C-alpha cells in the first residue's frame, strides 16, 4: 500500500465542473481553478463544462498519465450522484479509487446562494479543504460479501403477492409473511377496480392461488416479523407464528367445523366485511382465502376462553383431527439476503371528524363499507341497502375525508377520487339513486382516469366543488325531514348549500399503519414526517431504503393505486434479484476500526453501535469491529474517550486538514 507518500510525492489534480449553468451560473469556476493552482501539491487545476461526461472523465485519466498525478479532487455535484463515476475514472487512470475526494459545490453552494462573489469564495474554501485533505488519503480496498439468495416479503397484499410471485417465478426462494389469516389485503375486499370496472376478485384470486401453488414460496400467514439481525445479503429474521388452533397441514377447508360450532349464528364482527356481518369464533376469513384454512379466534372461542365447550368442532373434524387447542405461538428463524417490505396502509378513522356524523348517523358509511355492500360476495349479496333495509334514493360522496387537511393528514390519498367515482357509478347502476359527489379537486391523473371522470359526468353524477362542512339531521324544510343534510359551500356557485340525501359515503383516506414506527425500527428504515416509509431517493431509488437489501413496495411508501403498487412491487423484486444474481455486494471501506494496542477496553463504544458491529474480545479485553456490519456512521469514533477507534476515509489528519482548509482565509 502506498500510504507513506511524503508531501513531496503528492501530485494533485483538481477539477471543477460548471454543471452547465447549475454551478457555472453562480460560481466563477475559472477563478476557483486559478485559486487552487497555488496550493501545495497541486499540479493540474482545471475547470470543465461537464466533468461527469465521458470527455470530462477522460480528462482525469489523461492527466493521471501525463502528469503522474496521484491524488484527484473534483468539485461538482453531490457525491450521492457521481462519486462512483469519478472513483471509477480515477481507478481507470491507474490509481487507487480512494485517492479521490469530491466536493459538493452545487447542493451546498450554487443552488443555495445568490451572491455570486460570496458563492465563489465559498467554493474556493470547500475546494481548498478537499485539496488539503486528499493529501492524507490512503489506498483502500473494497470488500465483497456474499448474498444469501432467499428473500423475505413482508405483507401479503397485492404488492407483496406480486413481489413474491415475481421472485419465485425467477426461481428464487421467497418467504411471504402476512399477519392476517389470509393473504389478499385490501384488494380482496374490492368489488370492481377503476377505471376499467373489471372484477377485482377475478384478477386477484388467480394470483393468490398462484402463491399457494408455487413451490418456491413459503407462505406464513397469521405471522409477524419479530426481529431482524444482520445486514444486506445476510439477514437473520425471526418470525412469530401465531397459533390458529387449526393444523395448517391437515385442514382442507371443508368448513364443517364452522357449521358444527356451538354458536349457531355469527356473533362477532367480521373483519373482512368491516363489521357489516357477523362471524363465529371459528371461521374462514373469506371464501377465496389463501390458505384455505380455518382459524379460531382465541378471544371468542369458549374452549380457549373457559375450557368448557362441547367441542362440536372437534367432532366435526373427527377424521382429520386438524383442530388443535394446544397450539402455541412459535418463533421461526430464517436466513435471507434481501427483504421487501410491503406492509400497506390503514384507512383513516372517520370518527376523527365528528362533524361528518360517522358512528352517529347509521346511514353515514365509509367507502370501504359501501365497497362491501356493493360486492356480490358481501354481507348483502351485492345490494346497496341502508341500515333499515331501504334502498337509498339519493347518495352523497364526501371526498378528502382525513386527507388534504392540516388537522388530520396533509397528503392527498390519491385513490379516493377515482375510488369514489367508481363507487358512484356502481351506486347508479345498482340503485338508480341520485348521486352527488362533494370534492375539492378531482384528481384523475392515471391512465384512463380522466376519461372515467368524463364518463361519470355524462352518467348524471352531480359534482359539487366544496369541502363538506357538516352532516346533520336537522331539517329546515319539509323535504329535509328524515334525511341526512349535507351543508357545504358550493365554491363554483358561490353559495352555501344544504343537500338532503338518504346515504352518505365518506371517502376515507390512507394512513400509515398504526405500527409503522415499530416496523420502521425493525427493518432500520426511515419515515417521512407523516409516517410513510422513506425511499432512498424519490426519483432515482424509489423502492430502495437507506438500509441496503431492504426494499419497499406499495402503500407503505405512500398512497397509491393498484397499478402503481404492482409496478413498485415488480421494481422491488427486480432490485432484489439484481443483488442476488450478482452474488455479492461490495462494501465501502469507510469503516471504523479499533487500534488494538491503544484500546483500554473501557466498553464505552459497545452500546452505541446502531448496527451492533462492536464486540469485546473475551481474551484481549479489547473492542473489535466487524467491518462487514459497520456502516461507517462514525458514532463510536466520536465517542471513544481515548481516541482508539479510527475510521478509514475519516482519519484525524484527513478531517483536521479539511477543517483547516475551510477555515483558512485566502
Amino acid at each position: 500500500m502506498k500510504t507513506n507518500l511524503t508531501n513531496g510525492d503528492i501530485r494533485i489534480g483538481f477539477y471543477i465542473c460548471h454543471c452547465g449553468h447549475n454551478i457555472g451560473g453562480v460560481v466563477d469556476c475559472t477563478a476557483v481553478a486559478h485559486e487552487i493552482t497555488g496550493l501545495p501539491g497541486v499540479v493540474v487545476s482545471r475547470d470543465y463544462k461537464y466533468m461527469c461526461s465521458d470527455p470530462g472523465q477522460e480528462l482525469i485519466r489523461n492527466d493521471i498519465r501525463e502528469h503522474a498525478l496521484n491524488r484527484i479532487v473534483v468539485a461538482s455535484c453531490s457525491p450521492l450522484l457521481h462519486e462512483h463515476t469519478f472513483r471509477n475514472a480515477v481507478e481507470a487512470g491507474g490509481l487507487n479509487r480512494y485517492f479521490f475526494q469530491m466536493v459538493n459545490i452545487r447542493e451546498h453552494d450554487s443552488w443555495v446562494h445568490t451572491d455570486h462573489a460570496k458563492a465563489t469564495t465559498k467554493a474556493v474554501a470547500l475546494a481548498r479543504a478537499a485539496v488539503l485533505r486528499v493529501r492524507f488519503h490512503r489506498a483502500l480496498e473494497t470488500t465483497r460479501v456474499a448474498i444469501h439468495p432467499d428473500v423475505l416479503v413482508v405483507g401479503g397484499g397485492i404488492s407483496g403477492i406480486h413481489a413474491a410471485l415475481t421472485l419465485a417465478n425467477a426461481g428464487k426462494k421467497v418467504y411471504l409473511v402476512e399477519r392476517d389469516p389470509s393473504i389478499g389485503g385490501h384488494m380482496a375486499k374490492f368489488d370492481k377496480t377503476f377505471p376499467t370496472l373489471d372484477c377485482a376478485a377475478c384478477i386477484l384470486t388467480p394470483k393468490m392461488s398462484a402463491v399457494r401453488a408455487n413451490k418456491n414460496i413459503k407462505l406464513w400467514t397469521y405471522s409477524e416479523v419479530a426481529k431482524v439481525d444482520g445486514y444486506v445479503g445476510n439477514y437473520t429474521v425471526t418470525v412469530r407464528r401465531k397459533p390458529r388452533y387449526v393444523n395448517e397441514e391437515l385442514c382442507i377447508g371443508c368448513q364443517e367445523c364452522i357449521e358444527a360450532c356451538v354458536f349457531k349464528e355469527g356473533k362477532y364482527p367480521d373483519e373482512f366485511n368491516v363489521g357489516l356481518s357477523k362471524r363465529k369464533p371459528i371461521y374462514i376469513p373469506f371464501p377465496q382465502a389463501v390458505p384455505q384454512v380455518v382459524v379460531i379466534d382465541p378471544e371468542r372461542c369458549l374452549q380457549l376462553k373457559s375450557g368448557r365447550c362441547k367441542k362440536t368442532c372437534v367432532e366435526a373434524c373427527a377424521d382429520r383431527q386438524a383442530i388443535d387447542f394446544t397450539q402455541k405461538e412459535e418463533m421461526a428463524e430464517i436466513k435471507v439476503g434481501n427483504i421487501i417490505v410491503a406492509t400497506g396502509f390503514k384507512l383513516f378513522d372517520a370518527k376523527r371528524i365528528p362533524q361528518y356524523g360517522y358512528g352517529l348517523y347509521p346511514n353515514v358509511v365509509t367507502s370501504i363499507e359501501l365497497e362491501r355492500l356493493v360486492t356480490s360476495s358481501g354481507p348483502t349479496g351485492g345490494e346497496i341497502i341502508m341500515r333499515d333495509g331501504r334502498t337509498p334514493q339519493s347518495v352523497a360522496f364526501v371526498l378528502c375525508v382525513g386527507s388534504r387537511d392540516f388537522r388530520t393528514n396533509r397528503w392527498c390519498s390519491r385513490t379516493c377520487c377515482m375510488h369514489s367515482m367508481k363507487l358512484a357509478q356502481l351506486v347508479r347502476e345498482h340503485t338508480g339513486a341520485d348521486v352527488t359527489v362533494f370534492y375539492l379537486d378531482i384528481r384523475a391523473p392515471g391512465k384512463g382516469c380522466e376519461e372515467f371522470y368524463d364518463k361519470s359526468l355524462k352518467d348524471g353524477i352531480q359534482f359539487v366543488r366544496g369541502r363538506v362542512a357538516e352532516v346533520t339531521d336537522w331539517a329546515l324544510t319539509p323535504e329535509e325531514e328524515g334525511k341526512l343534510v349535507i351543508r357545504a359551500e358550493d365554491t363554483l356557485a358561490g353559495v352555501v348549500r344544504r343537500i338532503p340525501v338518504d346515504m352518505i359515503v365518506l371517502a376515507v383516506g390512507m394512513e400509515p399503519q398504526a405500527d409503522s414506527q415499530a416496523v420502521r425500527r425493525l427493518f432500520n428504515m426511515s419515515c417521512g414526517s407523516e409516517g410513510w416509509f422513506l425511499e432512498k431517493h424519490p426519483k432515482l431509488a424509489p423502492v430502495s431504503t437507506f438500509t441496503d437489501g431492504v426494499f419497499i413496495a406499495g402503500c407503505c411508501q405512500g398512497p397509491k393505486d393498484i397499478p402503481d403498487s404492482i409496478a413498485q412491487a415488480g421494481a422491488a423484486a427486480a432490485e432484489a434479484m439484481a443483488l442476488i444474481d450478482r452474488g455479492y455486494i461490495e462494501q465501502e471501506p469507510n469503516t471504523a476500526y479499533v487500534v488494538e494496542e491503544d484500546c483500554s477496553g473501557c466498553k464505552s463504544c459497545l452500546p452505541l453501535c446502531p448496527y451492533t458491529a462492536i464486540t469485546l474480545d473475551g481474551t484481549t479485553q479489547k473492542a473489535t469491529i466487524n467491518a462487514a456490519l459497520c456502516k461507517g456512521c462514525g458514532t463510536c469514533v466520536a465517542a471513544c474517550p481515548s481516541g482508539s477507534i479510527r475510521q478509514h476515509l475519516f482519519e484525524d489528519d484527513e478531517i483536521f486538514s479539511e477543517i483547516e482548509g475551510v477555515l483558512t482565509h485566502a
Partner: protein
Amino acid sequence: MSKPKIAFYWCAACGGCEEAVVDLAEDILGVLDAVDIVFWPVAMDFKKSDITALPDGALFATLLNGAIRSSEQEEMAQLLRRKSQHLIAYGACACHGGVPGLANQFSREQLLRFVYEEAPTLGEDGRSRPQLESEANGHELELPRLHQAVRALDQVVPVDYYVPGCPPTPKLTQEALAMLLSSNPPPRGSVLAPDTALCDECPRKSSKPSDLSFAGFRRPHEILLDPEKCLLAQGVVCCGPGTRGGCGALCVGGNMPCSGCFGPTSRVRDQGAKLLSSLCANIAAKDEAGINLALDGIPDPLGTFYRYALPHSILQRNVSQAARAETLSL
C-alpha cells in the same frame, strides 16, 4: 566526569509536584547519586543569577512544574529552556495547564476585580488592587504582570518530555529520570507514561458492564460506593476511559473516581470534549428533558471534564489568542 546537572522549578502550581519529588523518600538518594541538583528554589537557597551565569545548555534537564500565568513565570520558563538540554513539563499544570487553568473561564479583569474588590472576605479597607510598580524604602518595586490566560508550558516554550499527574507518582518520576539518563532515551515530545486509558490498568475493569446506559449521575459523597464495582456503573463520573493510565489507578483504589489528571491519550485533542461525548452518548434517556435531567447530576461540567486540560482545549482559542496579543504588547 561530572554528574548531569538538574534543575527544579515551579510556576503556577500548588506545590504538590515539589512534594512529589520529596515523596521519592530514600530513593532520592539514588537520584542524587546520578545527578547534581543545581537549582531548586523551593528546597534550597538558589538565586536566578546562578542560572543566568550558566552557559546555554549547561543543564542536562529542568523539571518544571506549574502552568504559566505571569510574566515572571514566562521569563523563567524561557531562561530555563535556554539553559537546558531537556525541558520536562512535570505534572498536570505544566503538561496541560492543570487546575490553575480553570481560571481561563474568566477574564483577567474579572479575576482581579473579584479577588481584590468583591470577595466577601475582604474588609472595607482592603479593597484596593496592588499596583504593578511602586516604591518602598527608596527602591522601585515591580510586580510580575498577570497574563490574560493560563497556559501550559508547551504553549510558551518547546517542551521535550512530559511527566503527567497531579502530582506524578514517585514511580513515574523515577522511571522518567531513568529513561532520560539511559543510553536510549525516548523520542523528544514523548509523554513518559503509557498511551492507553486508565481502564486498561483499573482493578475494577472486569466489573464494567457492556452497556452503561446512565440513568443519572451521582457525586461520590451522595452514595455509598461499592469498592469493587466500576464507578461509572455506579453512576459516578469517572474520567478513567478518557485519561492516560500510568498512575496505577490510585484514586480508584481509594474508592474515588478518576478526575483525569494524567490528561488525554496522544490521540485525543480535547480531553473534556472526548469525555463528554463518550459519557453523553451512553445516557439512557432519549428525549431532551430526560437527557437534561441526567446531566443535571453534573453540576460543574467544566470543572469535571476540563479540570486539568482547559488551556489545551479547543475551547480556549479566543482567550489564548487574546493572551498572545497581550504578551506581544508587553
